């Protein structure tokens, strides 16, 4: 890749991250809520019980890290793309000699940066507050899997962002975000009647990979989960980019 093009990608990623970090309506909830929920559930409410059940404690931690990974990608793409499409920014970008993929890469980098920050805070809380019996290698492995494994959430957000208007986008993103949060088994073991449908959600597959990284039993094979996540990412990215190009917005 030419140096100039690489510079354009890096500059775009830098400013996309900077502007999201400066937006309190985005940065505050997505950076703080996961660790706050973890401290409430894993320490304040159920800390005493979980101290005697390390397996459950690790399960709660893994589930909440996956929950943390969902927001930046889904909302950072979903709402931002819908708004920027509606407000003519994508049109301006298209008229300029901006690298076409730079827009998406920048948003992915932003989501991964947010997720990295979330992982650092949650790992710190797990090791130093909840005192989970986990090593640095396991934590690093979990962070790597979660940060990369969040790409399907970016793809879901992007797909919604190219379909709906800016004002409708938060509602539509929540329409996927909230059911996925509850029905993937991130917070509580699902009843049998719902557990069978959990694999339809990408968060379920990322949770299984996360549990595996922490040495916990996980359903299905890691390869299968990784394939599902990669498939969802590629399919939705491709559909969204095609739709954007057809609509003259990207």
């Amino acid at each position, binding site marked *: 890749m030419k140096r100039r093009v690489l510079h354009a990608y890096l500059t775009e990623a830098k400013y996309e991250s900077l502007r999201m970090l400066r937006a309190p309506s985005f940065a505050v909830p997505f950076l703080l809520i996961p660790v706050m929920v973890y401290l409430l559930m894993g320490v304040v409410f159920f800390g005493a019980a979980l101290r005697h059940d390390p397996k459950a404690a690790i399960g709660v931690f893994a589930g909440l890290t996956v929950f943390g990974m969902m927001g930046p990608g889904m909302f950072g793409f979903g709402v931002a793309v819908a*708004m920027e499409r509606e407000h003519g920014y994508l*049109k301006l970008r*298209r*008229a300029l000699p901006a690298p076409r993929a730079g827009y998406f890469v920048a948003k992915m980098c932003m989501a991964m940066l947010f997720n990295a920050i979330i992982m650092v805070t949650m790992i710190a809380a797990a090791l130093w507050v909840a005192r989970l019996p986990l090593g640095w290698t396991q934590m690093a492995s979990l962070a790597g899997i979660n940060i990369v494994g969040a790409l399907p959430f970016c793809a879901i957000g992007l797909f919604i962002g190219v379909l709906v208007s800016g004002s409708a986008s938060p509602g539509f993103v929540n329409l996927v975000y909230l059911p996925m949060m509850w029905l993937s088994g991130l917070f509580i073991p699902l009843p049998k009647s719902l557990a069978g449908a959990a694999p339809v959600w990408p968060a379920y597959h990322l949770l299984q990979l996360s549990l595996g990284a922490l040495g916990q039993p996980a359903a299905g094979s890691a390869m299968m989960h990784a394939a599902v996540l990669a498939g969802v990412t590629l399919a939705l990215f491709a559909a969204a980019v095609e739709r954007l190009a057809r609509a*003259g917005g990207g």
Partner: protein
Amino acid sequence: MGRLTIGPQDTILPHSLVDDSMDNECLAELRGVSKRFGKIRALDGLDLQVQPGELLALLGPNGAGKTTAISIPLGLAAPDSGVARLCDRRQIGVMMQEVALTDELRVHEHIDLVASYYPAPLTVAAAMEMTHTTAIANRPYGKLSGGQKRQAQFAMAICGRPKLLFLDEPTAGLDVQARQTLWDTLGELVRSGTAVVLTTHYLEEAEALADHVAVLTKGRLIASGTVSEIRAVVGRKRISCVSTLAAEQIGTWPGVDSVDRDRRQLHITARDAEDVVRRLLAADGQLQELEVRRAGLAEAFTELTQEACS
């Protein structure tokens, strides 16, 4: 009628629609371009061309097709028929009419981002100095006034050292001083060889800046020429008075383009208003409520359109 043409070619239409005979000096070109949006005909067989160092003003009332005329060479809208050509995209700068940028980024950051797309951009400081935006460099874009936002967008448009600038209503929302500053900067750019295509509905803007004016109405190029040629066409005046003189008789006088009677009122459109007024006063000693005013641009466009259709 001129053609809109703009440098070396970067095909923006399906190859079958591209004519390779475009002059290499030309930076952008529209040839016989038509475009409809539903039932609305936005462009109707438009031919335009832009040469290096030329400032072309696309003049017309709202809805005339000006924005569509620059959207097509930029590749933002596909023509239904005709050919559009544009030079290397890395040689163009763009300022669009309705675009919302990220509120959280500061002005110098927005300029830095756009500059990163170009092979040999100005430094951010130089772009801000040139556009007189240094004072707002550290202000978040969302905290700027409407006029300051346009100034920041102008700095973004020129930061890549473009050979061709597309400016869509660049001075809309600017105060008098900011508008003059933008005009001065544009003048410098044109003198240094940059071609500019700007859309405007301000006659004085075209007059202050343009080498070449193309007047659009309902997607058609109804007049094209130098500023003085266009001024001569739209330099008519409107005379109103209460008089018993016959409209048909006045219509035969030299310098009179048209006469309408509305009950007691006569409405005369004239190229030579002073002579017509003298003659009116001499012919009707009882003449009352005399009023002479410059035909507005909208009236001039109406007249031009009527002439184009007649």
